């Protein structure tokens, strides 16, 4: 009988789930993906940027911009660290919820509510609204913090309640809450700024006190305060998730709701409590933005960081310590791309393109960490004929 050709129709690639690979191997895959992504970025930039096409030699300058964007001056280094801190804070907020498999994509809104609440307190009690009502700075700061935490927690609690009681889809609910928050901000701005310019301007009250005096600019003291607060929060969340009873309950609920019920964990309680924690941290991030940095609020105060933070948390596999690294990578790309758009005079939207491309590669690389490809063995020659 003739050798059968049908045998050749075996699948070319056959997938199997991999046993968890080693740390080094998986990091190597991720780094390779990052490098590949950066190369593609260069290619895309070459297509988009006229100056590069005229002088292809400047491609080195293109890559050098990434270093320059974060490390060339003291100011850039400070803003690099500060930006990491704020993004990290939001990512930390998401982590408890994500570990519970509660897909909270409402960090944007929860943080914005934090900003709004802090600024509202500052606006009404800080002298801007009525010069006669002007609370002392320290009490203002404390009250702003309390308001921000509360607002963030409430914004996180609402979807959690519905999830706990009626199993309402939390991804879609939290997403919608973001926009409710945005329009709440524009409503407040119209109320507060009757002129119609709808820009509040920087408030003079509610400033962080200059704690660290030896720095070259007073603003750096605020940055340092923010960085230290977020570092402390990172440590706390790390401990909360890994070493406390609450953290253990979150892991059990996230892995299997049935197991949680079996050992008597109240799933509803855990969902609600965890989302309050999540919201509180978003509120904190909002406070850092509203009180520490902007001292003002716009619909764009959070600027999409609530969404970027989802990627930061996910890339770090919801490990708070790894998030320092992933947040760093995102900010590094962001600042580098900003530098590129200045140096090459192109649109300020370039960072999004670059972050998008690099993320595609890193997201895609997870596949090669989790799955193994088994290629069809080559047929012996005589069978192929």
């Amino acid at each position, binding site marked *: 009988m003739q050798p059968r050709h049908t045998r050749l129709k075996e699948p070319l690639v056959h997938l199997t789930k991999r046993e968890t690979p080693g740390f080094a191997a998986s990091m190597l895959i991720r780094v390779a993906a990052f490098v590949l992504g950066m190369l593609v970025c260069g290619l895309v930039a070459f297509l988009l940027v006229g100056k590069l096409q005229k002088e292809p030699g400047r491609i080195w300058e293109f890559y050098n911009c990434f270093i320059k964007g974060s490390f060339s001056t003291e100011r850039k280094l400070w803003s690099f660290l500060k930006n990491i801190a704020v993004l990290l804070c939001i990512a930390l907020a998401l982590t408890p919820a994500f570990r519970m498999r509660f897909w909270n*994509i409402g960090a944007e809104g929860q943080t914005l509510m934090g900003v709004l609440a802090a600024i509202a307190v500052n606006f009404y009690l800080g002298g801007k609204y009525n010069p006669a009502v002007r609370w002392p700075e320290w009490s203002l700061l404390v009250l702003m913090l309390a308001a921000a935490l509360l607002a963030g927690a409430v914004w996180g609690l609402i979807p959690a309640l519905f999830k706990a009681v009626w199993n309402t889809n939390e991804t*879609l609910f939290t997403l919608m809450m973001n926009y409710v928050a945005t329009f709440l901000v524009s409503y407040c701005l119209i109320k507060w700024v009757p002129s119609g310019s709808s820009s509040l301007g920087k408030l003079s009250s509610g400033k962080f006190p200059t704690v660290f005096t030896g720095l070259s600019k007073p603003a750096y003291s605020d940055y340092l305060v923010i960085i230290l607060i977020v570092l402390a929060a990172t440590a706390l969340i790390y401990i909360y998730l890994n070493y406390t009873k609450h953290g253990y309950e979150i892991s059990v609920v996230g892995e299997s709701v049935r197991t949680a019920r079996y050992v008597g964990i109240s799933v509803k309680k855990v969902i609600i409590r965890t989302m309050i924690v999540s919201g509180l941290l978003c509120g904190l991030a909002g406070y850092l933005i509203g009180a520490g940095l902007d001292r003002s609020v716009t619909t764009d105060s959070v600027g999409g960081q609530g969404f970027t933070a989802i990627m930061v948390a996910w890339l770090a596999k919801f490990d708070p310590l790894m998030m320092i690294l992933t947040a760093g990578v995102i900010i590094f790309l962001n600042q580098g791309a900003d530098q590129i758009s200045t140096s090459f005079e*192109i649109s300020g939207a370039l960072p999004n*393109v670059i972050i*998008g491309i690099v993320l595609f590669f890193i997201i895609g690389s997870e596949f090669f960490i989790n799955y193994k490809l088994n290629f069809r063995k080559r047929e012996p020659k005589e069978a192929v004929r």
Partner: protein
Amino acid sequence: MNPWVDFLLDSLGFGATFMYGSTGEILTEKAGHLNLGIPGVMCMGGAGGCLMLNLIGESALPPFLIVILGILASFLTGALMGLIYSFLTVTLRANQNVTGLALTTFGVGLMKVLMSDKTRISVKRYLVTPKQYFRFPFAGRSDSLQVLGVMFFLAVIVACLSSYVLYRTRTGLNLRAVGENPGTADAAGINVTRYKYLATCIGSGIAGLGGLYYIIDYMASQEAYLSIEAYGWLSIALVIFVLWKPHMTIPGSFIFGVLFSCSSHIANIPWITVTVAAKPILKMLPYLFTIVVLIISSIRNKRENQPPASLGLSYFREER
């Protein structure tokens, strides 16, 4: 013109933007994929269409061909974005939320770079003549029908056609099965991967048309591209609002359109006075309505009105 008619026609026209976005997203979600990249897809769909119009807008081609080529380019750009998304989430089984958000980041950014003055490939000239072509009979008109362009009617047709395919054909039956229970669909001999790819790419192509429609057909304005992202998110809300039924996006998008555009029309209607502060509240309403619909459908827990059962989950046949 009667301010009421003007207002309603404008709402209809405006709503068609979400009609495209939602119909596209529904097709994707029915395959079990929550594509949060829709805002980016719509942006890029707009950019792609504009790019094509920029190339051929002033050529000697007949106007209807220019319109068709513009639409085609927009669709293909959207579908290409869908291809990126489906390669990552279907073949590489990446997390859908994260991939979608990355796609939005990428798409919105790339569109802004492309449409801005500083980029080499300037798409500025696209507005010179083509916008007239998007009115029947492809050369502009001056009566009241000029409010609604070719692409508005296309949106209605696409929405109805999508519903027909989803609920009245075998293809639709198979697609819904893929989104409900890919294991079952697979065991029934349906090529799950192919359905997921096709639904995502065609859905993204349709959503992409929304971007082109908004920039050229509806707004016909230089700066229109800046607000597409927001309408992309609104389209995702509309999907829930209409409980995953494409034909319902027609009234649904009209309601959203009324709420979003009434603040600019109400001034023309004599016996209604609305303060400026009500504007953001009115714009908030679509999202609040969507939340209410989401809550009510989860309380009533009617099986047919739930999100597709496997929405957001990757499928791997040999999972044990």
